[in-house]
């Protein structure tokens, strides 16, 4: 978590204000176009399990993502961030903006906290679209007032072009990872690094890796699997997968494929852009208007990539993920694909040994 915080502190060296955003799909392009630097506070590893500050505010039955955000904002980043942005996703995050506001106030610190309601009715159509437009306009006004900046269409168009480029490059790198032309664990690290980098640096980072020649040390004979979950598998878990003879060829991870699979066209109109962005977003358990299409999309990915196994990496206490698992498991098994459910928390290394046997047994099942 310290590295993560250090990266964000590094961004402060520029004159731009830094806005910490959560959860995963905030309107980054909008912040960027208004001269701000957005960072996504997500999946920060916490190898030491140091959550002393968070434990004063959030019970231990909240997911590790929420607890880590609280810890990060109230400790390592309490002097760094110039603002926070949050949109609604789950019940754990619902109260977090005010918990963080109160927590910062207790420390004598006050920063603007922006909250946006993302319609759980369809944000791309009808009243959902109208409502999304209004909330985006409200956000623009709030940002203008808080930071003495102004919105205009031209810089917004340029920002959407930049983000489009970044997503296209991420997809390109993802395809290389799927073909084992770059190790999947390196690809995961890069996507993690992207959270704390400006979009310009992300583009440089991606171009650099696309130009490098990598070879994967996972043998071709390894069984192809798909991984799914909110956060990517930890380095320890990745080692277990490759050690057991499993090769990740495609992911349905919220912070990875779900974030980049749909790339909206650049636009000068925030209303048009975000209604397209959310309506056509790759279905995520946290985007409530999309529940009906999630299974179909996953089945399509399974068919396209010919995986033999599906590994669900559950973030402990994440209800959004856990509700769909029994039905999803059944649907996947009906396709003749093997299914394994693991449960973990961000930075959790304690349970690795317990998972080893299950992963090895799963791999044997696939090999046979």
């Amino acid at each position, binding site marked *: 978590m310290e590295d993560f915080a250090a990266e964000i502190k590094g961004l402060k060296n520029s004159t731009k204000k830094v806005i910490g955003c959560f959860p995963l799909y905030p309107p980054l392009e909008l912040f960027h176009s208004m001269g701000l630097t957005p960072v996504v506070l997500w999946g920060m590893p916490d190898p030491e399990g140091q959550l002393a500050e968070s434990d*004063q*505010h*959030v*019970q231990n*039955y*909240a997911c590790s993502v*929420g607890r880590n955000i609280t810890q990060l904002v109230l400790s390592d980043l309490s002097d760094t961030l110039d603002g926070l942005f949050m949109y*609604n*996703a*789950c*019940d*754990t995050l*619902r*109260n977090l*903006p*005010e*918990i963080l506001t*109160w*927590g910062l106030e207790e420390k004598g610190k006050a920063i603007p906290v922006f*909250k946006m*309601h993302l*319609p*759980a*009715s369809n944000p791309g159509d*009808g*009243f*959902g679209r*109208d*409502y999304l437009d*209004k909330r985006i306009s409200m956000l623009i006004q709030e940002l203008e007032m808080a930071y003495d900046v102004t919105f205009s269409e031209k810089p917004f168009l340029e920002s959407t072009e930049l983000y489009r480029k970044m997503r296209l490059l991420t997809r390109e790198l993802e395809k290389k990872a799927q073909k084992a032309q770059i190790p999947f664990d390196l690809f995961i690290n890069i996507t993690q690094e992207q959270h704390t980098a400006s979009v310009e640096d992300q583009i440089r980072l991606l171009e650099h890796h696309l130009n490098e020649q990598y070879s994967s040390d996972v043998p071709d004979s390894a069984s192809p699997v798909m991984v799914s979950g909110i956060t990517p598998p930890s380095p320890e878990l990745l080692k277990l997968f490759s050690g057991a003879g499993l090769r990740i060829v495609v992911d349905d991870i919220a912070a990875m494929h779900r974030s980049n699979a749909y790339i909206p066209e650049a636009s000068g109109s925030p209303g048009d852009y975000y209604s397209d962005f959310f309506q056509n977003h790759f279905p995520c*358990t946290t985007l*409530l*208007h999309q*529940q*009906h299409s999630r*299974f179909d999309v996953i089945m399509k990915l399974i068919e396209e990539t010919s995986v033999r196994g599906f590994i669900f990496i*559950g973030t*402990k*206490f994440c*209800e*959004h993920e*856990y*509700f*769909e*698992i*029994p*039905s999803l*498991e059944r649907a996947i098994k009906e396709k003749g694909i093997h299914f394994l*459910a693991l449960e973990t928390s961000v930075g959790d290394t304690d349970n690795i040994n317990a998972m080893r046997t299950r992963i090895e047994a799963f791999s044997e099942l696939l090999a046979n």
Partner: protein
Amino acid sequence: MSKFQKTRAGINLSKMMKANYMQQAEDVKQGKFAVWVGIIVPIEILRGFDIVIGVPENYSAMSSAKGLSREQCEKAEAMGYSMDLCSYARIDIGNNLGPEPDTAIPPLPKPDLLISNNSNCTLLLKWFDVYRHEYNIPHYILDIPFGYEAQKKQDTQYICDQFHDMIATLESMTGQKFNISKVEEAMDNSYEALKHWKRFLRAGESKPAGITAFDSFVQMAPYINMRGTKDLVDHFKILADETEERQRSGIFPMPDESFRLLWDNIAPWHQLRKMSARLAGLKANIVCGTYTNCLGNSEGSADIYPYNGSSPIEFLARIQNFPICAYGLDLRYKVLKELIERYQIDGVVFASNRSCKVYSIMQMDQERKLRDELGIPCVSIDVDHADVRKYNDANAFVRIEALLENIEASRKN
């Protein structure tokens, strides 16, 4: 609690709930269209159609109160539903999708349509979505913006738009014409019923209190699934009249009440009798609960939102944030402060409920602020509102007794 079994209101409650269930089952048998709704879905609007309305959350609470939660949760867990999911959902899923449905409380008649609402929590949408998969029926989602502050005009409009869309959906699915006069009548009934409900709750303000919060937990059940009916008005009138009569005659549930407490969270359904008896032994009365107080209020208020009879749809949109889970820390603090003063509360019990994150995640800050700013003693105890396996009586009472000692000590000072 047990006292209410012998009261007119207690007898009427059982009779009315049973009759309502039987009628629904019969109506479904006769081929009536059935809808399952989340508890905050404005069923007054659905009264504009001739349909059957089932409320799974109510069903789960009743199952837990009847001691059936363990078995039903285990059925859901055996199907792969994590033990960390809300126990209401596990009970309901266990009974509906598990191997054998319960005979003590038969499952609700199967629905043709699901209507969920993310006002109290977003988890409910995911829970209902399980049935969308399993029963292959449509799931209509009502999206209610969370209340960090008073509901804005644009939010009310957005909710109204959804209500109209829901009406159109129901018209096309049922083939019925929506009847607004039935909704007006239902809204009048609900508002009348709420006024009696508030009169009943006010009995808790006197010293000693005329009720315990446990009475209100039990009696709120019909508000959830019988809103809009004349039966509900009549029932709450009996309840409030009888409670006032008992007060006038000097009958109090805890005449030697020495500690007046406030309960923050959903009722511990599996503990109603045991907990109220044990508290009585300690002369501690929970006189008010945030859970039962919020019915019909606007966000952040301890009182019902006034209805002038002119536009039921807009009114129902305006009060969609009434459940205390549907608004944030600042507004919740405002209500807690108001209730503490109104009910002359000595101490607050925060029930930290693993099953209901939306109610619980924020209590630590709330507790600190109440202690710092109002100097009121508070305690946090671990409770699961419906899964008895996640509750430890001894641990809870060690902490409650410490709270009472703390109150004693602060009185001496």
